[in-house]
């Protein structure tokens, strides 16, 4: 992944900066959180994911959220349910088998993944960066368009992947950021098997100093990685 020059950076308590890369320079859809500074080898990113599928009518009014979807992620054993903005279902998003950090390696071949595979990252003595480009999931949009005869016709469907990242240094949480990746399907044909994915839109949330993991994310963390319950949380 090649970052765009000039992406915004913020200072990190204790030294260094975090740069949020909304899109990589090759326009391949990758986003990233990029710490550069001292003690980078003690820094890890933990990413959480919640998915939404929202339906809209021809006038653009929301018809609600499809909360009935269950998705499986390559290399991750936990099945994920779709939710709503007020009732999201959060999951740790890592291929890691023993550790929750984004670039931790898989320790077993689960869900079509391979041992040793890990989330894309740039790691060195002065850098700890994570990169992600989640799949579009057109099958979710396809289901949303496929209304039963007594339901209101669906004109567009937006599939969103909401990500929250925490930067952890040793036992401390030091930064929090976020990124929402969305795809809007217009008409049933746009989600048909074999159709090209619609353009993805990566929308960042401001990254800022933070000293704990939010309760909903901590529940998801402990569910999959119970030994990490010690991380500060509310």
């Amino acid at each position: 992944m090649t970052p765009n020059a000039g992406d915004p950076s913020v200072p990190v308590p204790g030294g260094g900066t975090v740069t949020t890369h909304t899109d990589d320079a090759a326009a391949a859809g990758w986003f990233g959180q990029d710490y550069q500074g001292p003690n980078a080898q003690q820094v890890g990113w933990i990413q959480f994911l919640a998915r939404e599928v929202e339906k809209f009518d021809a006038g653009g009014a929301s018809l609600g959220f499809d909360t009935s979807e269950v998705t499986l992620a390559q290399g991750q054993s936990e099945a994920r349910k779709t939710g709503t903005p007020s009732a999201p279902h959060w999951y740790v998003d890592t291929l890691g088998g023993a550790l929750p950090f984004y670039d931790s390696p898989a320790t077993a071949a689960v869900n079509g993944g391979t041992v040793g595979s890990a989330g894309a990252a740039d790691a060195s003595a002065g850098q700890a960066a994570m990169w992600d480009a989640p799949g579009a999931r057109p099958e979710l949009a396809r289901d949303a368009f496929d209304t039963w005869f007594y339901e209101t016709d669906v004109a567009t469907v937006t599939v969103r992947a909401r990500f929250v990242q925490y930067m952890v240094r040793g036992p401390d949480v030091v930064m929090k950021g976020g990124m929402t990746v969305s795809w809007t399907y217009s008409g049933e044909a746009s989600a048909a098997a074999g159709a090209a994915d619609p353009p993805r839109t990566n929308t960042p949330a401001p990254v800022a100093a933070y000293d704990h993991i939010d309760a909903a994310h901590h529940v998801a963390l402990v569910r999959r990685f119970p030994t990490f319950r010690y991380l500060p949380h509310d």
Partner: protein
Amino acid sequence: MTELRGRVTAADAPIPAAEVLAVAGDALAGHAETDADGRFALTVTPAPGLRLLARCRRHAAGLALAPAAEEDEVALRLEDVAPPWPVRFTVGGGLPDGFPGPVLRLVPLALGALTATDVKWAMRPVGERSDSAYLSEAMTADGLALLLQAGRWWFAARLVLASDARAAGAVDPPPLHAVAAQLADGTPLDAMRGGWVLPVGGPTAVSLTIGER
């Protein structure tokens, strides 16, 4: 306004997280969710013909229906509409190494003696939820056991393993779908809307064949 209380059960076992709808004609008067003991309370404006309908979507799946009664705790029993039966789904011929079972999606088409209008409430949007399936569950490699209310159910199954966290250079495997479905005695099920129609009137076993479409 009046408060309605009640309990949702299947074979005397409480059903938690069931969605209880107060329905007056074609209008939704209120809704609530059952607690761990299957109990609920909701406040509604009294209306003639007010009924309570419970959408049960967990291990025991189906609809329970009863007239609303202000004085007593309303008993919403799944078996009063139609009994739930054990239904087991398995993947015949196995799965590729390291792959999980597919995700199964179900929608009720007919349940006991419920009218088509009542059954439609299973999929009616409520609040911010507008679901495309009544019940979705990830199967394991060993299959999936459910309790489905007697009637007819539509179902489909697929196995899509896209990346959430993505390794550099990772390519997602092609999606797999259930391409055939049959009962334990070999009877093929009728196809419908990219899935199949499953009649449930007793213990049932369904074998799925997974492949590329």
